[in-house]
């Protein structure tokens, strides 16, 4: 097999701490990046615009949430509200004539500040109580957006995103996809770097044992708040990118409570704290229902599945729910763990046991 540890010796600390110390991992990452860049030329527009584009953006949002829930260990059940703040802020800033680059930054900062204010609850409560505090954020933000016409543009209004350009490139057609790709790559590198630097270690320390963290000089107060700030910053910009590159018009329902739950599902199904898991989880939660729906509809059209139309509509939902249960039963640590096990199997192949 080509996927081997044999002959891989790190001779300096920089290489040992590289993002992908094993050459095969590095090649896989580069290959995936190459496919992502070439996608508009090799896949049909329909697939790129309706499957890959939202998958990328939701992956970046899932990465933000996995940073908070997995790495820093702070539960958040109102993350769609953070994205909503980012989306609405960026649209209003862009409408005021703020350049798109700065509007994104502003959207991130506004989300981060509001997210940290609600995150401050985490300084006093943990676990289920923190879930309640973040749920309160979801409902408060929803309420404010719906009931303040200056933000939502009136009840049940749809706010269109203005035409903008990023670094002098007008954001339209294929550039929408590249914008999302750029952001997702930046977020991915950001989270990977956090996990290998002193900042990320401090976050994990507070998550694992806060008293042990404080005795080595890590202030739990500071790092919990900082985790909310950083994660909400990424989440806010992801919301803005989602609005500008995918929806192109926003309504409050797009960032409702069910979206928060979907995000949590992405993180849990993918694997808490895992970067690969965020991609897999986002893909699972977002794409699987679409694929199942198409598949079942195809079966129905071919006459293989001869059932009533309403049952036909519900089969994908049932299959989706069953699949989540099957995957979580088979591997409670998520899709990332399945990936990890497979990778380790090939790393030591043909031996059965070994260390990675």
């Amino acid at each position, binding site marked *: 097999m080509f996927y081997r540890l044999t002959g891989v010796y790190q001779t300096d600390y920089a290489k040992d701490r590289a993002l992908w110390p094993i050459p095969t991992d590095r090649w896989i990452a580069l290959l995936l990046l190459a496919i992502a860049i070439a996608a508009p030329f090799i896949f049909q527009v329909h697939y790129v615009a309706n499957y890959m584009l939202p998958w990328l953006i939701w992956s970046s949002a899932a990465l933000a949430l996995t940073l908070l829930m997995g790495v820093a260990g702070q539960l958040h059940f109102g993350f769609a509200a953070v994205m909503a703040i980012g989306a609405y802020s960026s649209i209003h800033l862009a409408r005021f004539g703020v350049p798109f680059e700065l509007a994104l930054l502003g959207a991130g900062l506004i989300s981060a500040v509001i997210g940290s204010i609600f995150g401050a609850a985490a300084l006093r409560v943990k676990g289920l109580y923190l879930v309640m505090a973040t749920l309160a954020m979801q409902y408060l933000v929803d309420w404010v957006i719906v009931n303040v016409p200056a933000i939502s543009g009136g009840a049940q209004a749809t706010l269109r995103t203005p035409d903008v350009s990023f670094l002098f490139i007008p954001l339209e057609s294929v550039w929408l996809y590249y914008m999302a790709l750029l952001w997702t790559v930046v977020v991915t590198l950001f989270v990977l770097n956090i996990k*290998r*630097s002193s*900042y990320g270690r401090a976050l994990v320390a507070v998550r694992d044992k806060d008293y042990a963290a404080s005795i*080595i*000089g890590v202030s739990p107060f500071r790092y919990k708040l900082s985790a909310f700030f950083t994660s909400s910053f990424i989440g806010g910009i992801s919301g803005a990118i989602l609005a500008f590159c995918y929806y192109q018009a926003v309504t409050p329902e797009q960032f409702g409570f069910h979206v928060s739950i979907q995000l949590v599902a992405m993180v849990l199904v993918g694997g808490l704290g895992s970067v690969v898991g965020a991609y897999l989880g986002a893909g699972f939660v977002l794409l699987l229902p679409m694929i199942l729906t198409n598949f079942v509809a195809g079966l129905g059209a071919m006459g293989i599945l001869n059932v009533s139309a309403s049952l036909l509509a519900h089969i994908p939902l049932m299959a989706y729910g069953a699949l989540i249960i099957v995957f979580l039963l088979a591997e409670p640590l998520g899709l990332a763990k399945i990936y990890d096990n497979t990778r380790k199997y090939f790393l030591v192949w043909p031996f059965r046991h070994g260390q990675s």
Partner: protein
Amino acid sequence: MSENDSVTREPILVCDQVSRWFGGLQATKSISLSIERGEIFGLVGPNGSGKTTLVNAITGFYPPQEGRIEFEGNPIQHLKPYRVAAHGIARTFQNVALFRGMSVLDNILLGRHILMRPSAIASLFYWWMAQKEEIAHRRKAEEIIDLLQLESVRNESVDVLPLGLQKRVELARALCAEPRFLILDEPMAGMNQEEKEYMVRFILDAQEALGLSILLIEHHMDVVTAICDRLMVLNNGQKIAAGKPQDAINEPAVVAAYIGKTDHAA
């Protein structure tokens, strides 16, 4: 170490009339002690005698309600634990307090937290802002790994290690902060004879290599009498004996506290 007693050395840590109670339970009663720079100071006593409470008072987890604690002349009795760490005090815990989700190396690197400048921005621009620092501190961490002979388990996850090794990793994490004062809370609890001997050697090695002052809580009297310069014995939150290890543990009050009163205390 213990030979030059004639030289009076400056105190590194001074506790003056430290009291701490929890509700109606007085855990430490007006305890005063002075630990000199470079010595190993033993703190012994039966279970529940207030040893760990005193250590928690020093490290800021349970600030004393009365009394003063000075470290190198600065009062530290009202500092939060993470501020105490920044003053140069490190400690290990009775029940190993490692970060279970992390590798041995990451645990040890975390020891260097107070010497690093962690930030989200530095992580974002890792290659320009963090890499150099990470590598410099990795080099220092490897020195400690070398000192405590942890090379072979460097990349293991800490929760798969046996207890003896976990305690050694915790010692490594504490040493990595380059402390001037180290508190060891029962570093040999639950160890067999061989592991104990290893641990003693590591403690002495580290003390010599890093010029540490050490406060050692330990139940193994053979260890305490062998390596401590001075000893204090607590019982029910009060000091019942202090001084040279051999003399202190043979005081009638100490014998009585440990094995009960006899007709004629030997």
